[in-house]
């Protein structure tokens, strides 16, 4: 018996047991995510810190408001607002989820093996999923918005992808602000110039969004090492 079970092993197992007993209880959000089969370590990243959680709640709050607002029947304007603002949500999430201004442990995080891009991507995907549920679900309910319920998805991907690409050159807040401004200006201009209100989200718009998304992703991947270094001095 002593070959299989030495004192070190017994001590190690006891240490594991007492760590489990002492470990803080998981928050509701964590338990929910775990119920959804999200791996434990990813859950910790997503829910890790209260400051980041605030960012999620803000994004969710805005998303729900938009979703509810878009459920106005017979009002093309509300549809337009939905489609214009919704894609910017993941961008907001990304801006608040990465970098020295958002993450106090940024420097220590840089020195870890996990790729910076991976961390940003996990958080960006989280915000995207939350936005899809919070915005898409109410939008599906209203008949006017149903057909366009997901017309904002490709633009959202495009904006997120463009933001990440910009973040390989500029700090997160500046990068996302530029992308958001360009988007809003572009959408408003298209609305004024084009044949109908929602032209920006029609077929051409979707194709354009897909293209931007692809290019942004390629650029981000190529320049991903910038997420691994302190590009901006303090």
């Amino acid at each position, binding site marked *: 018996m002593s070959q299989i079970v030495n004192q070190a092993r017994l001590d190690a197992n006891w240490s594991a047991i007492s760590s489990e007993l002492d470990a803080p209880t998981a928050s509701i959000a964590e338990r929910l995510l775990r119920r959804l089969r999200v791996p434990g370590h990813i859950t910790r*990243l997503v829910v890790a*810190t209260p400051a980041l959680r605030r960012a999620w709640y803000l994004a969710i709050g805005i998303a729900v408001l938009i979703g509810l607002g878009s459920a106005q029947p017979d009002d093309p304007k509300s549809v337009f607002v939905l489609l214009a603002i919704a894609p910017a949500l993941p961008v907001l999430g990304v801006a608040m989820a990465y970098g020295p201004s958002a993450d106090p442990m940024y420097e220590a995080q840089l020195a870890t093996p996990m790729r910076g891009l991976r961390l940003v991507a996990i958080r960006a995907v989280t915000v995207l999923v939350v936005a899809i549920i919070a915005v898409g679900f109410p939008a599906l309910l209203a008949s006017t918005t149903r057909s366009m319920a997901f017309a904002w998805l490709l633009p959202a991907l495009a904006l997120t992808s463009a933001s990440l690409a910009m973040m390989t050159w500029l700090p997160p807040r500046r990068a996302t602000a530029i992308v958001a401004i360009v988007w809003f200006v572009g959408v408003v201009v298209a609305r004024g110039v084009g044949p109908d209100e929602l032209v920006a989200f029609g077929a051409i718009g979707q194709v354009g969004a897909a293209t931007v998304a692809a290019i942004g992703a390629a650029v981000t991947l190529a320049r991903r090492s910038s997420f691994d270094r302190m590009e901006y001095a303090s």
Partner: protein
Amino acid sequence: MSAAHVVASRLGKHYDGHVALDDVNLLEQGGLITLLGPNGAGKSTLLRCLATVVAPDDGSLTIDGLDPRREPERIEIRRRLGYMPQDIGLISGATVFDAVEYIAVLKEQRHDRRRRRAVFDVLDRVGMRDLVSERVERLSGGMRRRVGVAQALLGSPTLMILDEPTAGLDPDERMRLREILTERRRSTTVFVSTHMTDEAAISDTVLVIADGSIRFAGSPGRLAALAAGRTWVQNDLPPPDVRASWRLVDGRHRCLGQPPAGAELVEPTLEDGYLLVRTPVSPG
């Protein structure tokens, strides 16, 4: 795994025309290496380069033969690395446990139970195990530093880099932190920066850095020995051309510089050597 092998050759870094590092050369493996220098000397920049969070503009750096400029090698270096930045920046609103576990996840500890145990282990080693549920804002400065050291200990690194871990701490806390670090000196290469000379005295190697370049690299004894024959005590006020002087308890003056003939020489300390080496010889 044995302590990390750090080789730096002609490292240089500049920010907006200001030279932060100039022609830095290093060759270290194992032991406690103290980086001594005033604020703005380039300590943080050098440590950041070693910790791979900043890329130097000139020169080369390898850690265990790995080049941080190449992504897969950089990642492998980071697997062996524990870094505590000057501003550990613990996430406000989080608990001690959360903060350390966050880094554990980033250090690829995927298995939930083993990761939790690792977090408890490192907190235990810095004496913070009982405070796992404490909110970070409520910790004293010394406790925050200990949490910072704990996250750097995750994963049993063979290279540890700590930027001014003892700044602002009282002597007890400083001693305690140094004890935690000196435990590792055989199995790990530990770089610590400070501007307190008494801490340098107990390290294996001292690197004096000023204005971005290394002025001295060697043992504490050798640094002190640089001032041999240059330190003396006298009753009268020292002349203005001494390098440094200070008043002793008994009213006499201890001086560093060029001793006059027949002066009462005294044993040089590490601080004397540091002062000599730090400031370039002033004209006149």
